[in-house]
């Protein structure tokens, strides 16, 4: 493969600087020994990381986000995999409509969704409940999973399944023993991406949480609307590291480049 020229590398360096700057600044701020926001930090201190431990609310919200992410991503995966199998490999009336429906959370403005969810959930008495949150998040993250699973389904060699069928396997056996293992990287990649999306969701969630189900981003948002201190930065840093760690998992399991290219397949 041809190498990039010096101009391209300069462009790339500026691009990286642009992309990384806000995150680097946040990490920098989190290291301040002072009681207020300061960049560059006048010294290096882990004081604000220790402070996280003194704020059980944040830790609790972190756990909520974690559980919520796992529950929503799992629910959404369970629903998206069969849908992807149908949409990815069959032509049937209504297919495009279904696909558009499942992709719609990407096009409907999030604020509209948040309000719609809030009104609907309080009507049916699920407002602020973990179940309500899980359902809403499952809706929001479905497009992410569906895209990845669809990509692996469409890339799948159907004859492999026919081969299994010709050897006597029932439909369910084909799914369990052949199809699912083969699309597994897409499913896992989609799950992780969906998990991260749920874990970081704010705009919708802020409308539908209650104190016992407050998620970390909402907690952070509430915190910075009331006070801004380096604690936000240190918690953000932890979130950044956690997310980066998860992305390494994707890279290992699925390949970030496949995640991107695959993600484009409709």
């Amino acid at each position, binding site marked *: 493969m041809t190498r990039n020229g010096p101009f391209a590398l300069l462009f790339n360096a500026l691009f990286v600087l642009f992309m990384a700057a806000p995150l680097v600044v946040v990490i920098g701020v989190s290291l301040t020994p002072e*009681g*207020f926001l300061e960049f560059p930090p006048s010294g290096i201190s882990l004081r604000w990381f220790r402070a996280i431990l003194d704020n059980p609310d944040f830790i609790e919200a972190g756990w909520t986000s974690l559980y919520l992410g796992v529950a929503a991503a799992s629910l959404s995966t369970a629903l998206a995999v069969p849908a992807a199998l149908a949409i990815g490999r069959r032509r049937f009336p209504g297919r495009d409509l279904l696909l558009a429906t499942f992709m719609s959370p990407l096009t409907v403005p999030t604020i509209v969704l948040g309000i719609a969810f809030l009104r609907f959930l309080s009507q049916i008495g699920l407002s602020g409940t973990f179940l309500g949150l899980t359902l809403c998040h499952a809706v929001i993250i479905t497009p992410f999973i569906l895209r990845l699973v669809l990509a692996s389904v469409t890339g799948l060699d159907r004859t492999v399944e026919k081969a299994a069928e010709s050897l006597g396997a029932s439909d369910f056996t084909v799914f369990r023993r052949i199809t699912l293992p083969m699309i597994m990287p897409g499913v896992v990649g989609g799950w992780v991406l969906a998990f991260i999306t749920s874990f970081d969701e704010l705009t919708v969630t802020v409308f539908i949480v209650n104190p016992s189900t407050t998620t970390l981003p909402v907690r952070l948002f509430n*915190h910075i609307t009331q*006070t801004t201190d380096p604690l936000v930065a240190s918690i953000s840093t932890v979130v950044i590291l956690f997310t980066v760690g998860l992305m390494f998992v994707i890279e290992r399991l699925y390949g970030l480049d496949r995640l991107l290219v695959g993600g484009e397949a409709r």
Partner: protein
Amino acid sequence: QKVLTVGGYGGSFETLMKEHIIPPFEKAHNVTVQFVPGNSTENLARLQAQKDNQEMDVVILDDGPMYQAVALGFCAPLTKVPSLPDIYDIAKMGTDKAIGIGFVATGFAYNAEMFKEKGWAPPSSWMDLADPKFDQLESIPPISNTYGLHTLVMMARLNGGSETDIDPGFKTMVDKVAPNVLVFEPSSGKMSELFQNKEIALSIWGSGRVKALADTGFPVKFAYPKEGAVALMVAACPVTHSDVPDEAQAFVDYLLQPEVQEKLAATNGFGPTNKKTVLPEALQSLPYGPDKISKLVAVDWNVINPKREEWTQRWAREVER
């Protein structure tokens, strides 16, 4: 076990509630208290969203939004609040459905260090907001926020108008004040961030907020304008259709107890509304005692509230341009 859900401010108020105010109540009444943090408007919106199925049993709001909550029928009458007779009349809000639990003064917050560097005198008059030397160094909360509304009303009053004749207020805001304003910042967190980043030197803010920021070691100070600081009340009400109405009433009453009022004063800088509260020397600077309370300027919510939507529209169209 019964669960009582209380809506109120986030930040230091939330911390205080959760750590020091709620636990004794839980023990005494054998309930679990959940706290829903949010600013006044958010919690008011929450009340409206859940009109048919209220999640909150008690809500704590600024006085302005509280008037609206009462008007919209979200608040239940205070039927079992034995401390009512001990409360200043001004805190009774002319209704039996909500009660003030603390006084806050709306006045100046300023960065004392920056003022010293530049050799400026501390702000002393509401009209200082129009001083060109503060170009892009000011922040005022928008009209949706009580502090912003107070600013508008004060500008009207000092320029020949009043709540009933708001035009001079808007004119002054648009022509003289708005150009100095870097941002109309509603969020207290952002406001402290603006101070900390030295983006602003001066703002209109609550005495309680200033105290909270000053407590972090930041050189911010509160100043009472010579024309008077505006009284802002923090108010509480029991929410209608509560499934634990007795506990809700008891909680409002609890907030009015002198020992709780003292804690609110010590941590959040709320001036007590219960006459029986005694504050230690260090807290005497708060809006405290009949003398100081009577010196605070009050605004007329009964005039303001019906006009508020119209003013909000004008503010958005004229001031925030």
